């Protein structure tokens, strides 16, 4: 690929992101602007921003790569990513917005009245965030290596620098604009080349590559086997219950004006995700046919980046390639900055006193540590490594949130025990799984642990809570009322209370 394409795309996206970030700076003045955009973000803006933040390297590059490798079974990934929002909508969105807490540790402290629970939650949130940033940086490294030939650290490093600049200057308010823009950029960057490619292949526009006669575009799925059934089931558990614990997703809900707006926002997000996820499938299917050696060489995640240039020649192909590369960078930037904002919120509130200055220091810290980790680790398949983060979140933060919101019996001891049990089980399973031989019967259980670690974490949480019932928070009734009782409509919004 012409290296100029990579440079142009990278510089354009970084420049636009920074400009929108600075524009946001002009309207971002108070601490509340910094942390929660003063809770005045409209559902459409917020939904675009959530979509922008959520569609990470795994969605933009990873799903197509996975479809190129494993075919039909990979389609469960986008289904799980989308359906995770359904669970978020059902169980978490409105109550969490009403809780008035800003971060998950804030929620833990308010619900359980325990500093220990807060501390454990903070540590877990930071761990989850860091391990989610690492695959984004791997994706950036891969993109830069594929498109320009520069060493890996340039890609990861430029993402970290741009993210630090935008977050440090504008905080949450400007990030909301940046994220919303990046959703639409990502959608355009996948949709436009895909539509061009499909038009070309269907023979309506001139010459170009054609599908070789007799090629089976849609190979039949693998024969049914026990382990693939377990893997799919476990993956779905991880994605359905992992989404509702992701710190960068949850922090977005605090920027809604009220609980009902939080629900409307989620509904719009589901629509935006649905439209987006139609396209990676197209790339994956075509990548199997036209770029089969990518999967064989161990770089299936580059399918999306190389497909437009391979199929469409000339200037058109170069422009479309630049668009795809720009979209990929938007994916790394938006997810990373969302994570950095939420981690900076947690770190600065717990360690640095919650000031704007503390937020800035914490933001840089939150971005630099995963950069170090990304530089010393090898890139796994992006969709797979993000899937593991979901499994870890589902085994640790999900029980705290679900039981905290819906069950009065949860105690601080129960929550801490459940989070630690889930975290230790899931973490050690992932580490053991990476070293297990491919033909071992334990391999699937260890590499896709969510199906047993999530129930185990719930079980421990409930058991310990029951055993320590005397530790129930004294204010649980009041807090439950706050979570579930709808807010009073503001007088101006309600025509019935207007004087006639």
């Amino acid at each position, binding site marked *: 690929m012409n290296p100029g394409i990579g440079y142009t795309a990278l510089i354009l996206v970084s420049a636009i992101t920074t400009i929108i970030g600075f524009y946001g700076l002009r309207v971002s003045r108070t601490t509340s602007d910094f942390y929660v955009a003063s809770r005045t973000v409209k559902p459409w803006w917020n939904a675009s921003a959530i979509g922008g933040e959520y569609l990470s390297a795994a969605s933009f590059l990873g799903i197509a790569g996975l479809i190129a490798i494993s075919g*039909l079974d990979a389609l469960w990934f986008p289904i799980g990513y989308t359906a995770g929002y359904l669970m978020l909508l059902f169980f978490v969105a409105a109550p969490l917005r009403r809780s008035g807490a800003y971060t998950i540790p804030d929620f833990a402290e308010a619900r359980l009245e325990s500093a220990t629970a807060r501390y454990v939650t903070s540590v877990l949130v930071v761990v989850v965030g860091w391990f989610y940033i690492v695959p984004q940086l791997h994706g950036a490294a891969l993109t830069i290596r594929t498109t320009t030939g520069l060493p890996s650290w340039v890609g990861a490093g430029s993402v970290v620098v741009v993210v630090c600049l935008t977050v440090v200057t504008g905080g949450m308010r400007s990030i909301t604009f940046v994220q919303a823009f990046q959703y639409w950029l990502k959608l355009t960057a996948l949709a436009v080349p895909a539509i061009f490619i499909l038009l070309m292949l269907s023979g309506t526009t001139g010459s170009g590559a054609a599908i070789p006669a007799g090629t089976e575009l*849609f190979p039949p*799925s693998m024969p049914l086997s026990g382990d693939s059934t377990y893997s799919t089931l476990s993956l779905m558990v991880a994605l359905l219950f992992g989404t509702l614990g992701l710190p960068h997703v949850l922090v977005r809900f605090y920027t809604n004006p009220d609980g009902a707006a939080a*629900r409307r926002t989620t509904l719009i997000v*589901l629509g935006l995700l*649905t439209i987006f996820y*139609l396209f990676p499938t197209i790339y994956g299917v075509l990548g199997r046919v036209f770029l089969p050696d990518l999967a064989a060489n161990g770089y299936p995640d580059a399918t999306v980046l190389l497909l437009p240039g391979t199929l469409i020649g000339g200037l058109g192909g170069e422009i479309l390639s630049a668009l795809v590369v720009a979209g990929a960078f938007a994916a790394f930037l938006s997810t990373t900055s969302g994570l950095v904002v939420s981690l900076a919120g947690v770190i600065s509130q717990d360690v640095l006193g919650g000031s704007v200055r503390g937020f800035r220091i914490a933001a840089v810290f939150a971005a630099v540590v995963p950069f170090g980790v990304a530089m010393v680790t090898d890139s796994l398949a992006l969709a797979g490594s993000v899937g593991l983060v979901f499994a870890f979140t589902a085994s640790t933060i999900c029980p705290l949130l679900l039981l905290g919101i819906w069950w009065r019996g949860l105690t601080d001891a129960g929550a801490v025990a459940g989070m630690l049990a889930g975290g230790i089980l899931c973490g050690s399973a992932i580490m053991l799984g990476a070293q297990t031989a491919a033909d071992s019967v334990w391999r699937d259980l260890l590499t896709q642990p969510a199906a047993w670690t999530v129930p185990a974490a719930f079980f421990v949480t409930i058991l310990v809570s029951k055993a320590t019932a005397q530790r129930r928070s004294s204010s649980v009734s009041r807090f*439950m009322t706050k979570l579930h009782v709808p807010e009073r409509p503001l007088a101006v919004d309600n025509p019935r209370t207007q004087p006639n």
Partner: protein
Amino acid sequence: MSIGPSRPPAEGRVRVAAPRAQATHIPYRTSVSQEVAEQSAVGEVMVRSLIRSQLRLALVVTAGFIAALLLCWALVHLVPTFADWRILGVPAPWLLLGVGIYPVIGACAWLYVRAATKNENQYRDLVDEK
């Protein structure tokens, strides 16, 4: 402050009267929202029933959605003839998992939001009733 008639009671007798007996009568009513705010037993019952109905709703829709997912999975993996159907050249399993399942997700979300808002409106009507 003296209360009652100006004439003192007869000698040897003591007038016993609660001051409130002559206070202006204020009708005493508690709105349900006050009960909720004061965490009285009535308010507690109302909130508990709201939480229960919201949880029941969420669990029912989740169960329905998971049943739909299982049905899709079974169609794709357990019905061999399903893979032979093609629409515009795309096999049915790819269409189902790549496109068809998303409207189901959207429908579940829409149904839930409608029902949850209805629950909250019912609660609000009950509480605001004077």
